[in-house]
């Protein structure tokens, strides 16, 4: 059984906490999920979160109390990610084999979507599209918040989200006349609950 601790409930301010650094702990689960989406590698993601914690701690004076700490932390994390990519000049090691699996497995052309196929297709997207989809599609940020986090124009984020979704549809071969069916019970449960808020908590 893997060691570790249960993640704290996300987005919960520390009761009575006056030091904003105390809040970092409560954003770790979403930071790591964002890091995994960027690195596509759980080990690299953990290293990235560790760097983000240190950078955030040192830069805490630049955080404005009362503003969105999660967005602030996400910005630090993505800056560390892209800075690391520029230094390395090559893709991070694919220790999890996620990309290899992606390259060797094609989704079935039967109009069905399994969650594993979705994960694999997602890893094929360019960094900027994965990032935009996570921030807007998964974390519930507004386009404006995502744009501020990434330091780009709102239109740029909208374009990345649009192209990311279109690419997923293409990879998963969803854009045909066959009815959409889910082969994965968990996926089915989510999709049939289609009325859920688009702003679900990350």
């Amino acid at each position, binding site marked *: 059984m893997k060691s570790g*601790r*249960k993640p*704290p409930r996300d987005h919960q301010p520390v009761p009575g906490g006056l030091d904003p650094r105390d809040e970092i*702990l409560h954003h770790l689960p979403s930071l790591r*999920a964002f890091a995994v989406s960027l690195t596509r590698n759980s080990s690299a993601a*953990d290293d990235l979160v560790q760097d983000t914690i240190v950078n955030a701690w040192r830069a805490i004076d630049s955080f404005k109390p009362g503003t969105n700490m999660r967005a602030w932390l996400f910005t630090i994390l993505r800056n560390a990610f892209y800075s690391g990519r520029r230094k390395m000049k090559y893709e991070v090691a694919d220790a999890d084999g996620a990309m290899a699996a992606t390259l060797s497995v094609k989704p079935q052309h039967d109009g069905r979507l399994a969650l594993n196929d979705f994960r694999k297709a997602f890893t094929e997207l360019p960094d900027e599209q994965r990032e935009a989809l996570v921030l807007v*599609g998964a974390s519930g940020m507004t386009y404006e918040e995502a744009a501020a986090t990434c330091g780009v124009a709102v239109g740029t984020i909208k374009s990345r989200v649009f192209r990311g979704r279109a690419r997923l549809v293409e990879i998963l071969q969803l854009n045909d006349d066959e009815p959409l069916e889910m082969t994965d019970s968990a996926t089915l449960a989510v999709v049939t609950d289609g009325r859920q808020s688009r702003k679900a908590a*990350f």
Partner: protein
Amino acid sequence: MPEDNQDDDLEQMIDNNLRLVFQQELERDLPDRFVELLRQLKEQDPPQ
């Protein structure tokens, strides 16, 4: 229009799957080293 409806369905399906994938990430256990790192940082640089 049927085509628009299908586009909406696809968008909703993609976003639902995104949320599901990342919810699963959120629920994974955190490595102890994160909490330990925060503890060490606080020890070195306590609140004023």
